[in-house]
């Protein structure tokens, strides 16, 4: 944990810590505290003062059908994004692991979407599927399918899932490829000599040995889908049509800044803080486990 050889100085360590602590207190702890406080207040009918209402904001949220629907939307959205991006990345990584010549070339071409901002990814996919000018929407219509994600909730969900997953493939690919390359080739060759085919080897040897990577990516992808996809939603659907792509993070923004319902938005922030807390604990349990093995 700490070095045995340390320097003796009374003031210096505090001076060194000051910048980080100042930023942390002003921009993390103070706002988080304000969110907790605000979640217990509501403006009075004239909008002049805030009145203490206890847990009323939370009670209201947890019985509000829109909020519960947003939970459900978030669950569907993050499961689909996690499955789609991890599945595609694993498939690509397994293939890239099999080739020897040119794997560096493939890797270079597959990792750069990581650098594309979620909001820009949203613009790209929105352009492809734009009902009036989009290339994919045009050919869908040629084949008799009338695509319009502006009106159709399921299509809107499909589109934000595709854009959000597309951006995350590179990240998952890199970690899966590293995980695959860490599996000793002798184990796989031994199974091959015993006559196990590719799929059998994959499910009985490769996939189980890859499970630490898979579990790690699962947590990272859920966190990504929960919090980092704001830009995708905002550029493609803005939560619509109706509330069909209104994930929790987007609703905090929509209620707080667009709807000016500060009490409710703050209560939602507090609930999200709990979600983050749980995910952090899960991630740490994972890190602990990895240290043991």
């Amino acid at each position: 944990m700490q070095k045995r050889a340390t320097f003796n100085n009374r003031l210096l360590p505090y001076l060194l810590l000051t910048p980080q602590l100042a930023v942390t207190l002003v921009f993390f702890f103070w706002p988080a505290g304000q969110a907790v406080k605000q979640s217990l207040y509501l403006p009075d009918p004239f909008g002049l003062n805030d009145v203490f209402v206890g847990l009323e904001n939370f009670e209201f949220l947890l019985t509000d059908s829109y909020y519960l629907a947003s939970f459900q939307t978030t669950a569907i959205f993050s499961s689909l994004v996690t499955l789609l991006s991890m599945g595609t990345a694993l498939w690509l990584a397994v293939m890239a692991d099999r080739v020897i010549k040119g794997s560096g070339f493939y890797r270079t071409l597959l990792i750069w979407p990581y650098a594309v901002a979620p909001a820009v990814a949203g613009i790209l996919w929105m352009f492809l599927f734009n009902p009036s000018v989009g290339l994919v929407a045009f050919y869908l219509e040629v084949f008799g399918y009338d695509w319009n994600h502006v009106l159709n909730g399921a299509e809107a969900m499909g589109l934000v899932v595709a854009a959000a997953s597309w951006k995350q493939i590179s990240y998952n690919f890199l970690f899966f490829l590293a995980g695959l390359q860490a599996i000793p080739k002798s184990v796989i060759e031994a199974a091959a000599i015993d006559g196990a085919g590719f799929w059998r080897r994959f499910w009985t040897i490769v996939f189980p040995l890859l499970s630490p990577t898979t579990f790690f990516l699962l947590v990272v992808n859920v966190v990504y889908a929960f919090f980092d996809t704001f830009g995708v939603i905002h550029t493609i659907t803005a939560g619509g049509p109706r509330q069909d792509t209104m994930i929790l993070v987007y609703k905090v923004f929509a209620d707080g800044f667009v709807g000016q319902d500060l009490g409710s938005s703050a209560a939602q922030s507090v609930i999200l803080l709990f979600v983050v807390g749980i995910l952090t604990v899960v991630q740490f349990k994972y890190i602990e486990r990895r240290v043991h093995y």
Partner: protein
Amino acid sequence: MAVQKSGMVEKRGIGLWLTHAGLIFGILLVCFPIYIAFVASTVTQPEIVHPPLPLIPGDKFFENYWDALSSGVNAPVWLMLFNSTIMALGITVGKIAISILSAFAIVYFRFPGRMVFFWLIFMTLMLPVEVRIVPTYQVIADFGMLNSHAGLILPLIASATATFLFRQLFLTIPEELAEAARIDGAGPMRFFIDILLPMSRTNIAALFVILFIYGWNQYLWPLLITTDPDMNTIVMGIKQMFPSGDDIADWPVIMATAILAMLPPVAVVIFMQKLFVRGLVESEK
């Protein structure tokens, strides 16, 4: 036979060709949206609004990019690129600077409250700006930092991740070095500048790559605090270029802006691939 005489597992013949074909298909799938955006940034508006869009680039590359850079829609794109550069570099340099200092304090000093401070920093590990937007916005508004570069940068520079990274790194540096420095009469800051900083060079570079991309790609925060188009960053500015109501969007200029918005971070990933992969793996440890 599944096993070849060379001892390799299915790495020749049809299987290998299928693998290459699958990879190329995957790459086409991944690159397709970007390619189409590039094509759209090189054609004329009528070619876009009368679909289908041609599949090969047009000849309006220079016109469209010049239009975007010099005038844009709400603000010239060169200005948005400038704002993004300031924000990304400010976040990157700020995070690295404050994290390396606090990691130095936590590892190399023994002082009252050390563990309390460590946990205070640690607790911010997963508190994204997205979950505390309204109160953080109020803090920045109270400081009068709306529509300013400082307001864009400051709330995003606290990072437990970077502090951890440097802490881990310092713990692997042989203790004899600090001891020797102390015996030679070098003060802590001398040791920090002459020994720790040079030894952290590669890690700083790897972190720089990751944080630059993080800073460049920020969306929600600039969206909230830059109401003045001249302060927009490019990533959040693209969406603002779409007209409200039924007006037709200026697609070639918008798509040129989208391409410009991804150019710097993509260039960083491609040209500094080794550092990028290293930074990515390390920052998730």
